[in-house]
């Protein structure tokens, strides 16, 4: 049976580990995808310059949900600077691949993370 998405993408989409609101988040970023109308919220908790926890809420396609989950997993334990250097390509590698038309969904996750870090930094000042 041929599938549109890789097994890894499907698994992430069906059983994401990092979804849900974070009540004690220190940074929250919300982004929308102007192309297809999707929305994503990224929550991060930062302690001593490191991201110690992350979660997401996403209204979007299976790829958007899977990449949301991937980015949360990838940033935990990283400094904000390290987290900001994560690329679409690195995220997609975690899923093996994404259909071409779905690559923009992974940039949504990166945008969401950026906004969350900005939000945290603003509060710090």
């Amino acid at each position: 049976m041929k599938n549109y998405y890789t097994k890894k993408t499907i698994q992430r989409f069906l059983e994401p580990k990092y979804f849900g609101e974070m009540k004690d988040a220190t940074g929250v970023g919300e982004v929308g995808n102007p192309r297809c109308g999707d929305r994503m919220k990224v929550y991060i908790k930062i302690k001593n310059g490191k991201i110690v926890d992350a979660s997401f809420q996403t209204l979007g396609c299976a790829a958007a949900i899977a990449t949301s989950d991937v980015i949360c997993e990838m940033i935990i334990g990283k400094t904000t600077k390290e987290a900001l250097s994560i690329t679409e390509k690195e995220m997609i590698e975690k899923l093996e691949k994404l259909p071409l038309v779905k690559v923009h969904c992974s940039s949504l996750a990166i945008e969401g993370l950026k906004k969350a870090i900005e939000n945290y930094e603003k509060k710090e000042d």
Partner: protein
Amino acid sequence: MKKNKQKIYLDYASTTPAGESVVSAMIPLLQKDFGNPSSLHALGQDALYAIDEARRKVAEFLGAKESEIIFTSSATEADNIALSGVLQKEKKAHVITSVIEHKAVLEPLNSSSAEVTYLPVNKEGVVKVEDVLKEIRENTVLVSIMYANSEIGTIQPIKEIGAAVKRINENRKKKIVFHTDAVQAVNYLPCKVNDLNVDLLTISGHKIYGPKGVGALFIRQGIEISPIFYGAKQERGVRPGTENTAAIVGLSQAVEDLQKNMTEKTEKLRDRIIDTILSEIPQTRLNGSRERRLPNNINISFKGVEGESLLIALDQKGIAVSTGSACASRSLLPSYVLLAIGLSHEEAHGSLRVTLGRMTTEKEVDYFLEQLPLIVERLRKISGK
């Protein structure tokens, strides 16, 4: 992950499997009766006879003359021939159609030099007969309104429009041609061209348990249609090219097999699905009309859920459906049909289309109705809406 063996196809408006009798009717034409219908030898004449028989069956189904049926490579081609075929010789022509037509109608009109009026539809997706009449001008040459919509299942008042156009034509020197794309209607609705008062009517093979790659166009005697491409004189020169004999015979077998008694059973299943979803899953809405609806169509929007993810999650449970969400389209645009009936982008985003068919069972519906609420709930948790 557990492999789910269950396969439940609930996407019959996209395409249907070819019936057993259709396949057996087609095979000889691919092998021993492979002749070219234009050849004068016996092998060729056998093939010609097969096509003639096919034409007779389709004509009978439509209540038309054999000479009024031409076979095409698809319904899209039939629509193109119908519209461009009428418009080609016209100058400064005016055409009336609706905003929710199939792309096979909208695109040829968009690219023609004719002036086109795109009629709006009401929130149920219905074209008003008065609206058609109001727009008729002196230079109107063509009206094209679909019989039933593939996405929301809305049935248009074709018979009424046909009668009204006919009345107007009585006092006109230049007659208005009335075309309907009946692709989605054939399975369930009466299609006699003289009752409907249509001049051109399109049907498709693969939506009625026939093969893909074949369609047919009814062209009322006296209506002049120019070919849109040129070659030899097959299909009266309107659609040149060696006939796809197997597919044509397959289409005619599918027409012959149309089951008259399917409507009631299908309607019951449809109503059960609609009622259950609307009453058991909060924040849902039915798209399209409740009454003027194809017996096999269900289209529902779920708030806080995106349709592509819903489709993929159901697919993982072995259930095949469709959606009007932007995320599922190559263009990343939401369904223009859903927007035309007044849905917001967000509502179109959360839409799910379920279409039933000949093989759909009560049990399949049970399983679908059991899985769907669980998936919707999970996706709503993920979206936080």
